[in-house]
C-alpha cells in the first residue's frame, strides 16, 4: 500500500519549475512582483472501532497559489488545475483582481536582503511513515484501541483507534529570485475509549502520539493505556460549587493558554489594536518567572521549517523574557506597519495575504515536577480539559468550560465537570505561581504544567 500512496502522485512533477514558470508568466502579464506557492501531498488514515476497520482513506493532491503586486496593489488566486490553461487563468485572474484592490504603501514582498533559508537538515521528512504494510497500519490502530479497552471493564465502548500518515512538499518562489523547497512527514496513532459509570453516565477521553518518523512514534499500547487512564479518571465526575482556588493546568491544557498569548503577540493583532498587548513592548506583562520563546529552527520540530511563508529564514525569537515583552511575532507587512523587522513568522496558505504563524512556541520550563506542584496545593482544581472558545484577546477576558480533578491536601481526589474557569489573561500571566519541569513538544505549542492563582471557578 505504501507503493500505492506514492503512486497516487503520479510522475512527481518538478514543483520548482512550475513555481518559477508561474512567476515568469505573472511578470510578463505586468506584475511588478509575484510570489508562488506550489504544494503536493499524500494522506492515509484508518480508523478501527471495536476491533473492526471503520474507515480507510487514501489520497494524494496538489495545488498552486499565486500572489501578484501591481505596484502597491495586491491580489491572489489558487487552483488545483496545473494545465497550461489553468495556469493562464490563475495568472490573468490575479492580475484582474489586483486592479480592484487599494494601493497600500506597506504592502510588498520582503526586502531582498531578508530572503533566505537556514542551512542544515531540519529532519522534517522521513519516508518511513509509509513503511508499514497495509495490514500493519490497521493493526496499529487496532492495537491502540485494544490496549485501551483491555485496561478496565468499565471501558465498554469506543470512538475507535486510528493510525494516520501523511507527507507534504512545499515550494515557495518569488520574483526577487527566492526559490525554496522542503518536505515534511507526519504519522500518528490515537485511541479514544468510552467508560460507563454505574449510573449510566458516559465519559470519553483520548490520547495520541505523533512524530515525523515512525521510529519516534510511541507504541500503540502506550497510547491506548494512557487514553484509558485519562478516560477512567473522569468516571463519576460531579459539579462543584463556585469558588476561587488555585488551578493547576496539565501541559496539554496549559499549551492552549500559550496559544492565546501567541495570538495576542502577533503583529496583526497589535497594529489593529485587537490585543491587550498593544503598546507593551519593553514593558513588564508577566511574572518574572515567565520566558516565552518562538523557535522555528528546532531539529525535527512540529513547527519547524527552513523558511517562512514569505521566504524569510526562520529563527529563534524571545517574545517574553523574565516577564518583559521583548518582541512581537511579525511577518513583512506587520513589521513594516509597526516600524520593526520581520521575525520570520509569515504563514502563507494558498490564497490571501500572509498571516502570522508560530514556529515551535513554548514556555521555558521550571524545576519542579507536576507531582510537587500538586502537592503544594491545599485545595484547588487540576484541569485536564478546556471546552469552548471564551477568550477575548482585545480585553484579555478569559472564560472557558473545564473539567478536571479536585485537589485536596496536595492530592488528586474526585473528578469534576460542568464548570467554567474565568479570569483575565493579563492577570493570569502575572499569577503563574508555579511552572513545571515537564516541557514536552506534542505539537508546535508546548507548555509545562502551570499553577495559576486567582481564577474563578463557576459551578453550582
Amino acid at each position, binding site marked *: 500500500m505504501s507503493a500505492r500512496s506514492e503512486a497516487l502522485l503520479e510522475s512527481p512533477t518538478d514543483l520548482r519549475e512550475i513555481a518559477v514558470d508561474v512567476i515568469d508568466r505573472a511578470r510578463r502579464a505586468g506584475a511588478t512582483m509575484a510570489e508562488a506557492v506550489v504544494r503536493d501531498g499524500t494522506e492515509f488514515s484508518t480508523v478501527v472501532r471495536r476491533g473492526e476497520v471503520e474507515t480507510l482513506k487514501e*489520497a494524494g493532491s496538489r495545488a498552486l497559489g499565486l500572489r501578484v503586486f501591481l505596484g502597491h496593489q495586491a491580489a491572489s488566486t489558487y487552483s488545483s488545475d496545473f494545465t497550461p490553461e489553468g495556469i493562464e487563468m490563475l495568472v490573468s485572474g490575479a492580475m484582474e483582481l489586483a486592479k480592484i484592490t487599494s494601493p497600500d504603501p506597506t504592502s510588498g514582498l520582503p526586502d531582498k536582503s531578508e530572503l533566505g533559508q537556514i542551512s542544515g537538515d531540519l529532519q522534517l521528512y522521513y519516508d518511513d511513515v509509509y513503511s508499514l504494510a497495509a495490514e500493519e497500519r490497521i493493526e496499529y490502530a487496532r492495537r491502540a484501541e485494544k490496549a485501551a479497552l483491555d485496561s478496565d471493564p468499565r471501558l465498554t465502548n469506543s470512538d475507535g483507534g486510528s493510525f494516520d500518515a501523511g507527507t507534504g512538499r512545499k515550494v515557495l518562489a518569488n520574483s526577487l529570485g527566492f526559490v525554496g523547497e522542503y518536505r515534511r512527514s507526519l504519522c500518528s496513532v490515537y485511541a479514544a475509549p468510552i467508560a460507563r459509570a454505574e449510573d449510566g453516565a*458516559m465519559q470519553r477521553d483520548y490520547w495520541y502520539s505523533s512524530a515525523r518518523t515512525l521510529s519516534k512514534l510511541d507504541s500503540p499500547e502506550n497510547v491506548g493505556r494512557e487514553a484509558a487512564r485519562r478516560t477512567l479518571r473522569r468516571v463519576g465526575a460531579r459539579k462543584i460549587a463556585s469558588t476561587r482556588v488555585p488551578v493547576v493546568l496539565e501541559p496539554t491544557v496549559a499549551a492552549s493558554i500559550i496559544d492565546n498569548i501567541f495570538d495576542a503577540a502577533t503583529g496583526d493583532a497589535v497594529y489593529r489594536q485587537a490585543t491587550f498587548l498593544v503598546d507593551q513592548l519593553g514593558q513588564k506583562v508577566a511574572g518574572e518567572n515567565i520566558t516565552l520563546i518562538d523557535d522555528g529552527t528546532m531539529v525535527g520540530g512540529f513547527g519547524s521549517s527552513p523558511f517562512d511563508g514569505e521566504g524569510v529564514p526562520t529563527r529563534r525569537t524571545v517574545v517574553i523574557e523574565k516577564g518583559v515583552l521583548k518582541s512581537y511575532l511579525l511577518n513583512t507587512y506587520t513589521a513594516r506597519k509597526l516600524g520593526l523587522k520581520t521575525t520570520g513568522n509569515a504563514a502563507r496558505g494558498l490564497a490571501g495575504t500572509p498571516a502570522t504563524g508560530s514556529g515551535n512556541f513554548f514556555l521555558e520550563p521550571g524545576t519542579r515536577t507536576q507531582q510537587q506542584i500538586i502537592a503544594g496545593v491545599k485545595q484547588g482544581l487540576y484541569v485536564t480539559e478546556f471546552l469552548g472558545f471564551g477568550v477575548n484577546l482585545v480585553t484579555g477576558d478569559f472564560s472557558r468550560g473545564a473539567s478536571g480533578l479536585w485537589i485536596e491536601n496536595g492530592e488528586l481526589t474526585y473528578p469534576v465537570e460542568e464548570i467554567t474557569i474565568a479570569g483575565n489573561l493579563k492577570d493570569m500571566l502575572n499569577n503563574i505561581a508555579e511552572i513545571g519541569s515537564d516541557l514536552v513538544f506534542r505539537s508546535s505549542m508546548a507548555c509545562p504544567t502551570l499553577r495559576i492563582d486567582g481564577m474563578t471557578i*463557576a459551578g453550582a
Partner: protein
Amino acid sequence: MTQNQSLFFQKFGLTPNDLQSYLGEALSAGGDYADLYFEYLTSTSISVDESMVKSASQGISAGCGVRVLAGERTGFAYTDDLSPNKIMRAARTAALIARGPAKDPVQNLKQAKAHQLYQVATPAADADIAAKVDLVMRADKAARAYDPRIVQVRAGFNDELRQILVIGSDGTYATDVQPLARLSLNCIAKSGQNSARGAAGGGGRVALDFFHTDKTPEYFAQDAARQAIIQLDARDAPAGEMEVVLGPGWPGILLHEAIGHGLEADFNRKGTSAFSGLIGKRVASEKCTVVDNGTLPSRRGSINVDDEGSPTQNTVLIEKGILKGYLSDKLSAKLMGMPDTGNGRRESYEHIPMPRMTNTYMLAGEDAPEDIIRSVNRGVYAVNFGGGQVDITSGKFVFSASEAYMIENGKITAPLKNCTLIGNGPDALTRVSMVGSDLQLDEGVGTCGKDGQSVPVGVGIPTIKLDKMTVGGTAS
C-alpha cells in the same frame, strides 16, 4: 441538461458511461454501496482593513471523492484530477475496503425531484467584483461613522459557488448548484484605557441583491459597532447558577450544541452520545419543540440535496419535550433501520460524508418576550454569542456570550463582559420555563465543525428562559 451536468460532462469530458464504469470499479471487490461526489467550487474573498481593500483572492477547487461502504466499513479515496484514469484509480483504492466478489451497480441512474431553495438568478460568485468591493467599503464606512470611539474596522465579503454531481450504486443521480454569500465585520472600540470588540455579519444562499434590499452593509456595520461601544462599559459577569434568558436568533446556538450534535445518528448508532437510547424520553420541557430543517429557502444551512444526493427535509428532533428522532445519512439510516433524513454532508470531495445539521431551531411559544424578562429576579440576558462546543459523550456543552446584560428585578441593567455558559445537553432544556412568541433565525454566519470538517449551518430560537444555568463569570 442542467448547468452543472454540462460543467462536468463538457469541461471534464465525463460521459454517462464513464460514471457507470467508475461505480462498477468501486464495487469490484464487493461492497454494499458506492458513490462518487464530483465537486467544482469557485470562491472569492475580499477584505477591507483600515479602509483599504488590502486583500482580494479567488480560487478554484475541483475533484472527486469515491466512497465504498461494506457493512460498517467505509473505504474512501479522492482525486483533484478529474481525468478518467485518476478517478478509476481512486475507485479502485476505495474498493479495497470490501473483500468479496464484484457487484453490479444499478444500471439506470435516476435524478430525483429536488427542492428549489435558492432563488438566485445571478449568483454572487458571478457578480461584478466592484459591486462586492462597494458593499465592503460601505460596511467599513458605516461602522466608523457610528461612533468616534470605533478605532478599527475589518470587513470582508466571501462568496462561493459549489457545483456538485453525486452518483450512487443504488441509482442515485443528483446535481446541485449551491450559491453562498456572506458579509461580515469586526470592530474595535477604544475609550481611555478601555478596549472592546464587536462583530456582526450575515448572508445566505442569496444573490448580491440581498445586501441591497434585505440586509444592508449599514445594518451589519451598525450592529457590530453598537456591540463594541456597549462592551466598553461592561462589568464583570457573575459566576454560578442563575436564571438565564436567551434573546432570539443566534442564541439558538444553544440548540446546536446542547442537543443537535448529540442527535446526529452516527454517535447514536455507536452508542457514544449522551442521548443514546433516549428516543421517546423527555429531554426538554413540554414548551420545547425543536426541528432541523434543511428546506428553508435561501438560508445558509439549507441545501436542495445533501452531499449523498438525498433531498433535505424538515425533521422533528424534539416535540413538546419528547425526543423524536435523529439526523441521519445513508450509512446510519441503513445500519439503524431508520429513515435517511437527508443530513449526509461533507466539507468537500476530500472528506467522507457524515450526519450534520442544517438549520436547527426551536418553534415559537406563547410568552411575550417582555414578560420573560420581567419574570426574572436576578439573572443574565444573553443576546449574542461567539462559538460553542460540546462533549458528545458526557453531554456537557458550552457557548460563549459576546453580548449579555444583567437582569435585576425584572429589568435589563448593566452590560456584562464576555462569559461562557455551561450545561448538560440531556437536561439543559428541561429547565426551559418560558418560550417567547418571537422566533428568529440567525443572520447567516454559522459554520459548524465536526471531525475536522466545516459546513455552513443555521440556528434559530425565540426568547427563552432557563430557570437554572451556570454562568462562567468572575464576580460573586
